[in-house]
Every structure is written in C-alpha cells, then in structure tokens.
C-alpha cells in the first residue's frame, strides 16, 4: 500500500490563473527515493507543499482532488501534528527556529514542541547530530554557522523525528560535494529503513545514482516516470523535461556533431556507463 497518494490533484495559487499542479495522480512507496525533476515552474515545490498540507492551508489557493499522507488528510490539521514528516527547503536560514541558543537546542526544538519526554529528546537529538556528522557543532550558536553547516543542522532538526516521510526541496543546495554525498547517503539509509523519500532537485548528476525513481514534471503534470537509468538516458527528457546528467548531455551534444551509434540514445547517464560505452 502506498503511504502518500495524489488522486487527481490540481492546485492553483490565489493570484494565479493557471494550475500549478494539473490533475496529478501519483503514488509514493515506502523504501523508495522518488526524485521530482523539472524545469522552473514545473510544480515540484508545490507538490511537496501540498503533500505536507502547507498548500493551500498556508499559501492560499484552490486544491481539487485528494491527498493522503500516511492514511490521513494533511489538509485537515497540518501534517506537523503527525510528528512523522521531515520537511526541508532550499533556504535553511529560514527554517531555523530563531530562538535556539545552540545547535543541539535547534535540533531538539521540534520534539520539545511535540511534548516528547526529555530523555527521548536527548537520545534522538544526539543521534540526529551523529547522523549528519555535526556533533562537534552541538554547542555552537546557529547564528554562527556557515551555509553548509546550517543546512545539515536543518536536516538534523528533521532527522530527529525519525520521519516516515521525507519531503525535501533542494536539500543539498548549500552543501559541498562531500556534504551532498553524506546527505544523500542519509536519505538512502532512511529509505532502506522503510521511509518514503520525495526529493525535488536539479542535482541530476548525483541523484541519477541515488534515486530509485524519477518523476519528470512539466507544466504541473508528470510527463515521465521511471527508473533514472532509463528516463535520463532517453531523448524525451530533453524534449519534455529539463535535460539530463552531464554525461548524457555530452553524449547527446557530441552525437549532433558526429553520427555514431556510440553517441546515440539511450545515452550513458553516469561516468561509469560512459566508460563502458566508449572504452
């Protein structure tokens, strides 16, 4: 059974004349990392907001269709009440509580609001700091952190809940290469442990090997849906989506200059595939 479902969902912001989501029907399964990929304005962020119950409750606008999150309607009371949702955006500085004196307190902020017993908060916060590799920042003020440290703190602030559903909007945009790898490894481990991970990102090179499934959105509709190795290798993602990985782009561009079966679709998606093809 899918734990997050969209059934004929359309959404329009109050000031808009077009549907940002247009009749979307999707199921997201536990144990999978689903990567939402699309050009600007495709509806990836809005899909996450709707799943979290933030749109239209907070944003205003009109929602048609049914959304189910862990068997409940996130629009009714807001998904935060479930205490099982990890929601991360691309602007970590806006996700801070703003009142925590230390990174540890920042991470413990949400469980404290949910009224968890203090012993449970302590062990969960320590575990979350370890998971993100920021134990050494525990006593630092969040105001003094770099962008990457801040982003890892925000992810830790959600990891502390041990969420069943992760809703992630460009969660690694402020991280360096090693930080991104570590963060994606965390999401991989969470999915392997049974969580649903839905991740919107432009980071095709990294996510082509991390995600189990990619859904390409365009004009508020899913236009491609499948395994990244298949979807990213085709021509359709260039025609109807935002493009593919650097290697696929290189192969496609070269194929326009030189006619060769080595440079024809399906394109290699990763460096490893490129080496196999061109060796």
């Amino acid at each position, binding site marked *: 059974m899918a734990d997050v479902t969209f059934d004929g969902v359309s959404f329009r912001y109050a000031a808009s004349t077009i549907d940002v989501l247009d009749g979307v029907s999707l199921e997201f399964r536990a144990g999978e990392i689903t990567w939402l990929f699309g050009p600007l304005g495709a509806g990836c962020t809005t899909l996450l907001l709707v799943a*979290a119950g933030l749109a239209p409750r907070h944003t205003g606008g009109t929602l048609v269709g049914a959304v189910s999150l862990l068997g409940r309607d996130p629009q009714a009371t*807001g998904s935060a009440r479930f205490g099982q949702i990890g929601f991360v955006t691309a602007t970590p500085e806006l996700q801070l509580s703003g*009142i925590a004196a230390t990174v540890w307190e920042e991470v413990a902020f949400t469980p404290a609001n949910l009224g968890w017993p203090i012993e449970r908060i302590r062990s969960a916060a320590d575990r979350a700091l370890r998971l993100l590799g920021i134990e050494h920042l525990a006593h630092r003020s969040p105001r003094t952190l770099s962008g990457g440290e801040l982003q890892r703190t925000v992810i830790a602030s959600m990891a502390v809940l041990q969420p069943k559903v992760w809703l992630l909007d460009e969660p690694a945009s402020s991280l360096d290469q090693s930080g991104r790898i570590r963060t994606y490894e965390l999401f991989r481990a969470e999915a392997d442990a049974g969580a649903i991970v839905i991740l919107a990102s432009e980071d095709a090179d990294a996510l082509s090997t991390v995600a189990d499934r990619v859904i390409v959105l365009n004009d508020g509709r899913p236009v491609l849906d499948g395994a990244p190795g298949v979807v990213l290798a085709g021509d359709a993602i260039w025609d109807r989506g935002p493009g593919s990985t650097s290697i696929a782009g290189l192969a496609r561009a070269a194929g326009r200059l030189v006619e060769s079966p080595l440079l024809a679709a399906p394109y290699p998606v990763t460096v490893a595939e490129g080496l196999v093809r061109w060796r």
Partner: protein
Amino acid sequence: MTAPGPASPGLARRAHPLTGLSTAIAVTVLAFLVPPPWGPLLLYGASGVLVAICGVGRAIRQGVIVCLPLWVFLFLLHGLMGGGPTRSLGPLTLSADGTIAALVQAGRFGAIITASLGFYHAFDPSRFLNAVAARGWPMHVSYLFVATLHALPAFLDRAGASIEAQRTRGLRYRGGAWARARAVVPLALPLILGALAEVDERAHALEMRAVAVGGKRTPLDPPADTLADRTIRWSLLLLVLLALVGRLTSWPM
C-alpha cells in the same frame, strides 16, 4: 542595538526570566500608580540604579536616547504652553504647573523605557522559552512573545547586510540630510520586500516544526526558580497592590 541575551552576564541574566519580566511589568504599572510629582521621578531613578546593578547599565543611556524626543515634546506642550502661574527661565516663560506635569510624564516614560530596555538586554530567548515551558505556557503564545522580542535584532542584522550590499553598488548614504533622505528608499525597499517575501517560507517552517501544534512543550533545560526569585516576584506584586490601594485612597483621581 545588539541581539538580546548573551552579551549581558550580570545579575539580570542569572535571575529567572520571569523575574525580569515581572520587574519590567511592575515598573510599568507602578509608573502610573506612584504619587506624583516625586513618585515617577524616584521610580525612574530606581529603575536606572536597578538596571545598573543588574549589569545592563547600557539601558540607561539607550533609554535617554529613546526618551529625549518625547521629553522635548512634553516640555514644549506642558512647560511652554501650559496654563496657570508662570516663571521666567532665561528667555523662556514656563508654566509652573505645566513643567511639573511634563516632569511627571517624563519620569513615567523614562522609568518604563529604562526597565523595558533592561529586560530586553537581559533577555535570553532560549532560557525564557524553557522557563515558560516549565510553567505550562502554550508554545504558540511563548513563541509569539519571544519572536517579537527577537525580531528587532534580526531586522537590524538584515538592515546591516542591506546597507553593505547597496554600498557596493555605489549608494552614498552619509552626508547631509538630503543625501540621507535620498538613500532611504533604496535601503528600505529591499529590506521590506525581502522580509515580506520570506513570510510564507517562515510560516511553512514554523508549521513543520510544530510551533502551532498546541499542547505542553517539554522544557529542555529549565532555569532554576530560586527562593530569591520567588520572593522578588511576590514582593513586586505586593508593592503594586499597595500602590494601587494608595492610588485609590489617597490622591485625587
């Protein structure tokens, strides 16, 4: 103005956060209950001494800066334009009653502003949140209180960044009044628009961090509420009640 809290290691920071809040509220109420003309002036003096003892003496200077325009206005309104007998002070002819009224009001505002600034400088958001969570305050109420006090330094931080950004683009905001006036729009507009643009995202974040969930928050590290703190708070309450009784029974309404 700096962020509230960590810069003040004095007595005020060691006291229970509700003691500081109670003191600021008590001074505000007393300012209107103590008998004029000397009551408000003495209360102002006492507030100054109190914040100095508590290690937040900068509240005195800042209080004077904040109050000065108001004092000048009160002096003009009551001292120069008031009725009754007059006295000459150099080239000025002052209303005696009006001058006393101006001093009373100046004392009241001085006491309130100084005590409030003292509380502000001693304010540690995290300690306060833990203290009120231990008292069972609902999270959304305490967060609203804390966030309001925290908004000003955050806004000033952002203003500093905005000024630097505009300077790199060649904006000249120093010099005469005209140069400063012309700089207001390019400095203020991005600041206000930026703050408005972030409102939605902040609201999403706070929702997902269960600020509005309701119910009792778990205090992470509640500060000690000592016998001295409790004695001070009860004493303040008693003082306010006594002043209220005195106000109702002795001096004219």
